[in-house]
């Protein structure tokens, strides 16, 4: 204990260089923990979005592709599925609920999702959470729209706002469905899922605005359907989410859908698809982790430089300590505990910096990447990384410690300058 106090006081005496060393380590630890934090939060955010869904059904393609375009609005569907197929599967005795999804249009860069009111009752995200209305109500009329929290915030919309839906994606489209404007009737609370960035309308609305269109252009001489004057049952949808009465039936129903005869369909388990997605992203994650790990190593190398160059001036100190009775191993301990203390302070400061950084990045990450960062307590993995850094710091500290040990034996009580 006496040695630890000496180490602490000796560091305080050199607080200038010590603070710089701590800062270097802290920044590298911030990188390391930051990468880990964002990685785990991105995963949690993805997992939360599909947590209440048992199966996702769409046209046959890759399971990652289906997962990404249907739920996360990344990429596009290769094909649609027939309304009849949807009806048949939805009627399966094991199916508890379904949420149809029809994609393809947008509003000022935000995706328009055609769906049914089942979404508001059945969709579950996170830990059994349902969609909550910040303001307003679900869509009821044909030209009602419900917008996500982020859409409302980014575009400054409130209830009653009239919006025009653009054909296709992208923030500027020349093909607008401007003959059929929608009215915002509901604004959802923030969920941390792609729902926040969606404009939700009914399937019938999607059908209505597209009648009179073919191949993405409005046919001349034909106006869009007059509501009520036409059958608005959709012909096709993009995908649908399925909730089952019993999880036991999951694989059986999945196989039945995959073997569906009338058209090539694919049913995926969101968890399995996510696992595949993670393994694809794993390479990039490991690369990031490696880079931040190297930053930590360079931080520790900086500390080593400071301790070793300081050691020459401290030979006198070593001789004095030896003369008052310090054993050689206590001098090893002194130098090693200085390294350990510097690393510990660096690690703790790094932890503080990570949370400060997340706090600052929170609004930006949500705005630019749709990633909802939360200030969660460090994960076990992060504690382990911190412990690893601490261990590495102690190992590095053994080098000047060993030098001090050698000096103390070689010099004895003789003061060499």
């Amino acid at each position, binding site marked *: 204990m*006496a040695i630890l106090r*000496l180490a602490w*006081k*000796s560091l*305080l*005496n*050199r607080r200038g260089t010590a603070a710089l060393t701590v800062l270097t380590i802290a920044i590298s630890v911030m990188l390391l923990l930051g990468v880990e934090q964002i990685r785990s939060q991105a995963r949690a955010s993805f997992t939360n979005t599909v947590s209440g869904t048992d199966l996702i059904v769409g046209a046959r393609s890759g399971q990652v592709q289906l997962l990404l375009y249907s739920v996360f609005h990344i990429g596009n569907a290769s094909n649609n599925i027939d309304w009849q197929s949807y009806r048949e599967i939805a009627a399966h005795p094991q199916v508890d609920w379904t949420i149809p999804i029809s994609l393809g249009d947008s509003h000022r860069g935000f995706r328009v999702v055609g769906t049914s009111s089942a979404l508001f009752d059945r969709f579950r995200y996170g830990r059994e959470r349902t969609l909550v209305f910040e303001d307003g109500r679900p869509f009821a009329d044909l030209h009602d729209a419900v917008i996500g929290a982020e859409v409302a915030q980014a575009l400054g919309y409130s209830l009653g706002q009239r919006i025009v839906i653009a054909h296709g994606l992208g923030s500027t489209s020349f093909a607008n469905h401007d003959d059929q404007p929608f009215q915002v009737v509901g604004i959802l609370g923030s969920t941390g899922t792609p729902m926040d960035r969606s404009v939700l309308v009914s399937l019938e609305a999607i059908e209505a605005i597209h009648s009179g269109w073919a191949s993405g252009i409005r046919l001349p001489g034909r106006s869009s359907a007059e509501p009520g004057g036409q059958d608005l049952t959709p012909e096709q949808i993009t995908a649908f989410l399925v909730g089952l009465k019993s999880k036991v039936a999951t694989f059986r129903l999945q196989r039945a859908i995959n073997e569906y005869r009338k058209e090539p369909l694919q049913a995926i388990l969101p968890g399995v698809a996510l696992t595949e997605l993670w393994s694809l992203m794993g390479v990039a994650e490991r690369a990031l982790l490696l880079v931040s790990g190297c930053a930590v190593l360079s931080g520790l190398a900086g500390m080593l430089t400071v301790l070793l160059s300081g050691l020459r001036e401290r030979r*006198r*100190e070593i*001789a*004095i*300590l*030896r*003369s*008052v*009775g*310090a*054993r*050689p191993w*206590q001098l090893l301990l002194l130098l090693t505990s200085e390294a350990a203390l510097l690393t510990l302070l660096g690690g703790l400061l790094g932890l503080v910096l990570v949370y400060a950084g997340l706090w600052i990045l929170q609004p930006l990450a949500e705005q630019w990447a749709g990633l909802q960062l939360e200030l969660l307590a460090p994960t076990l993995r992060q504690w382990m990384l911190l412990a690893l850094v601490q261990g590495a710091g102690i190992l590095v500290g053994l080098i000047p410690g060993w030098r001090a040990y050698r000096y103390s034996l070689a010099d*004895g*009580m*003789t*003061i060499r300058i």
Partner: protein
Amino acid sequence: MLNIPALSVGQGESLFLRGPSGSGKSTLLGLIGAVLTPDAGHIRVLGQDLGGMGGAARDRFRADHLGVIFQLFNLLPYLSVLENVMLPCHFSTLRRQRTLARAGSLDEEALRLLEHLQLADPQLLRRPVSQLSVGQQQRVAAARALIGSPEILVADEPTSALDADARDAFIDLLLQEAGRAGSSLLFVSHDAALAPHFEHRLDLTDINVAAN
């Protein structure tokens, strides 16, 4: 090369050992301080054969029974005056116990020693040790060597950086406190003018057979 057939100092006595630089002073002090071991022969300090001890036992012996004052820069710059004085008590249980037996606390005994060495000014004690004069630093070092009453005090040219008045005052205080603690004092210097202060006087070149 140092070859001394016999050298003994009695308990509580003071010995002035004169030796020019290069005469083997450091080696002799290393041997007595149990940092070095003799190639041949014996060193008995306080009835114990230092040559026959292992490294850990010699470390412990030094911590318990030896107080050392160097020529210059004796103090750890990052500790206060009081902490510098109390330092040996953190490495030797024996000296700690002796100190506590004599005074109520380590601080109390350190203050008492400093007062005896004329360093009682509270303002002085609050200063960083690097801001003390050399004479003051050497007296703090003396207090550190004396705390816990080690049997042997070794002073290696402690006055060479002091002017004549300060030098004589320092030696008198050191002798007086060594006597009070019952410690034997081994005072090494090249300066023969200091010799009259001490009970016994020897010249290292006279007793070192290897030098003749």
